[in-house]
């Protein structure tokens, strides 16, 4: 195995070991979407009627509609939590250890992304399993087809977290990320309501939802869960992922010295 792959393997393994040690994090990550699914969706089921729109070929209940969005929610929160842990790591020093490894910095950052995405995917699948246990099932092939969609979404959202972590000065600012990144990104997307529903109340909000990369990530997951391919959603998600990753590499460039704020 080459040096770069040995390091990738170790970084993913370390993230997995940390995750196993933090069982509370796993439960919390699972409880959040389940509350949405079992409480919120049940309450709004009557209020929000949904018409037939691709990839659905028949009328669906609201619980079925929001499952892909809640998978996206897991990836979104995890991507941001991973950014929180980077700020924390940087303060505690283990990020320093990673960044002084004799490998290209972009590769080290990419390894961190892959590691956090792998954990997110594991959580998304656990959520899908629990949802299935409650009777919200997808076609069997959808569970396989969704894997690459989850991976691309995880990388895109992780890269956004990474880019943000290079800009955050202090751990406390994570609350700001929550208010100004996670919530707007989640609520101004197709996770909870389709675009046409949004357009009924405001075309501006619809337009914002339409350009939000998280909407496209959710649609990518939604189509994949029904074994369908959505090229437009993939293109948008991948493009956003590349832009966020380039921003992160720029943010962590030694010559830019953003790390120096931490001293």
């Amino acid at each position, binding site marked *: *195995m*080459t*040096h770069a792959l*040995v*390091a990738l*393997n*170790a*970084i993913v*393994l*370390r993230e997995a*070991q*940390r995750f196993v*040690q933090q069982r509370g994090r796993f439960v919390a990550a699972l409880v959040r979407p389940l509350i949405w699914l079992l409480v919120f969706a049940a309450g709004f089921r009557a209020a929000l009627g949904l018409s037939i729109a691709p990839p659905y070929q028949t009328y669906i209940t609201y619980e079925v509609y929001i499952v892909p969005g809640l998978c996206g929610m897991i990836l979104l929160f995890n991507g941001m939590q991973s950014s929180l842990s980077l700020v924390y790591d940087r*303060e*505690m*020093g*283990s990020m*320093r*250890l*990673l*960044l*002084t*490894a*004799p*490998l*290209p910095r972009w590769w080290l950052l990419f390894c961190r992304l892959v590691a956090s995405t792998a954990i997110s995917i594991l959580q998304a699948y656990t959520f899908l399993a629990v949802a299935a246990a409650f009777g919200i099932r997808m076609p069997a092939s959808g569970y396989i087809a969704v894997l690459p969609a989850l991976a691309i979404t995880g990388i895109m959202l992780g890269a956004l977290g990474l880019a943000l972590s290079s800009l955050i000065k202090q751990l406390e600012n994570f609350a700001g990320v929550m208010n100004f990144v996670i919530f707007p990104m989640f609520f101004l997307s197709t996770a909870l309501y389709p675009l046409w529903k949004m357009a009924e109340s405001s075309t501006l909000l619809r337009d914002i939802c339409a350009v939000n990369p998280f909407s496209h990530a959710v649609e990518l997951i939604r189509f994949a869960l029904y074994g369908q391919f959505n090229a437009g959603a993939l293109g948008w998600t991948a493009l956003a992922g590349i832009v966020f990753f380039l921003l992160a590499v720029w943010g962590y460039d*030694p*010559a*830019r*010295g953003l*790390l*120096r704020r931490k*001293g």
Partner: protein
Amino acid sequence: MTGLSICNLSYSYGTRRALDDVSFDVGAGQFAALLGPNGAGKSTLFSLLTRLFAAPDGRIEIDGHDLARAPRAALARIGVVFQQPTLDLDLSVMRNLTYFAALHGLSGRAARSRIEAALERLGMAERAHERVRDLNGGHRRRTEIARCLIHSPSVLLLDEPTVGLDAASRKAITDHVHDLSRDIGLTVLWATHLTDEIKDDDRLLILHRGRLLQNGFAGDLRGPLPLQEHFLMRTAEQR
């Protein structure tokens, strides 16, 4: 032959000058103590030496490799102990070290034998499978020093490695690193603000307000005065 060479290095945080035209060489196999009060610029210098950030001016060479031009070759030659602990508290000593070895491209049996040798050298072999959280401060530091030996570096950089340790642990770690320099010819740059960690035949670099005030052997520089007194006098002159 020089293990570490720094030439005209300057660095500013905005308008505040943290390092001002610092130049020095540390010969291969030499133990150099970088002595300076808090805020002298020691940690900034370490961040530049480990390429956490890069200086626009000046040159750093590690074991003959220019850090700006060949960062990977240069970083592969250094072992670092940062001031802040960088161990994962919930993982065992072995797992922490295996992770580090992999960052340097070492895995499997080769990594394991190097880790065992490094732990043995620091007297930590029997604690290999203990969780880092269960170790005392001195043993955690030893683990970090063992860790920075795994990839056989030629230059060790230690940024105030004895901070927060009791007197016995402090002495043990200081002696260990002096031994490493003497026995296996490692070039050592040891940042500290404690004069009792420095021996007369150590190279002494006094850094104050970002400038290098003195550069020579500790015994020669201090003359008849205790090092502490000499240090306080020299830094007081610059106030």
